[in-house]
């Protein structure tokens, strides 16, 4: 606790918008390739593999992965690591349906761990909406660990 108090604060990025402008659509061909890449066949009911939640929100959010890191004053070349990913589905992702993304950074917390040294823990939330408007069909919270080698 005392050691953490001595660290310089993490950049104040909570609330940064991750709203996207891109329209994201899962094509039947892409869904087929993704499903086969993870060892299954596509669903017959027109729903896309649920892991598209992660792909769609990452690709269509308002910043690239490198851009999110830059916002956190972190060089993507230093190796951000996935800590956790959570998702709540209100409806399935459908093949051929256009979607857009809204979201924001929730927090960036500086910590010290025995294994990784000083690190910033980034939590951000993204939502996938039908492109034509309306409530989100899913909401995902992702946590990344940004190792701060320069503070170790």
């Amino acid at each position, binding site marked *: 606790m005392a050691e953490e108090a001595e660290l310089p604060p993490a950049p104040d990025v909570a609330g940064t918008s991750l709203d996207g402008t891109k329209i994201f659509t899962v094509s039947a061909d892409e869904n087929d390739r993704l499903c086969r*890449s993870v060892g299954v066949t596509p669903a017959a009911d027109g729903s896309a593999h*649920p892991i598209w939640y992660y792909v769609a929100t990452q690709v269509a959010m308002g910043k690239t992965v490198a851009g999110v890191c830059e916002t956190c004053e972190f060089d993507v070349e230093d190796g951000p*690591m*996935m800590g956790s*990913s*959570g*998702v*709540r589905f209100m409806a399935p992702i459908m093949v051929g349906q256009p979607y857009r993304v809204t979201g924001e950074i929730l927090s960036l917390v500086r910590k010290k761990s025995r294994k990784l040294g000083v690190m910033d823990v980034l939590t951000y939330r993204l939502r996938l909406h039908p492109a034509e408007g309306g409530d989100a069909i899913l909401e995902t919270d992702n946590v990344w660990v940004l190792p701060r080698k320069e503070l170790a």
Partner: protein
Amino acid sequence: MSDAAGSYAIGDAIAPFTIESVSADAMKDWAVFLADPNPIHLDVEVVKAKGLGDRVINQGPINVAYMMNMLMAAFPGCTIEKMDSRFLDNVYGGDKAVASGRITAVDGDRVECEFTLDIEGRGTVNAGTATIRLNNP
């Protein structure tokens, strides 16, 4: 309790989903899907240079997909309503990955589960929980 939920009980094991050998070619596809050409997923020499091992590293969401596959196979026609997963270690090209789990709660047409993704010879690399809505016939 619905008929569908009546088929399940707390403590029941979920049938494993196995990937016999994690595919480096799939990682190339996922670099395109994710629009993220991070070379640790594509170039073993970069992995070595960074001191991260001697094989390419699977993109994290692929590991989540393996666990989703296990759930969808175990509960045909189900809807994954909620899923949380923690990334504990890397999965490498050529690894044998096994997703497995058990039921922790049954409530009406919903089942809660906990699960892991394990790598032969190395142990658990992902762990998580999910809430599943069953497909009532």
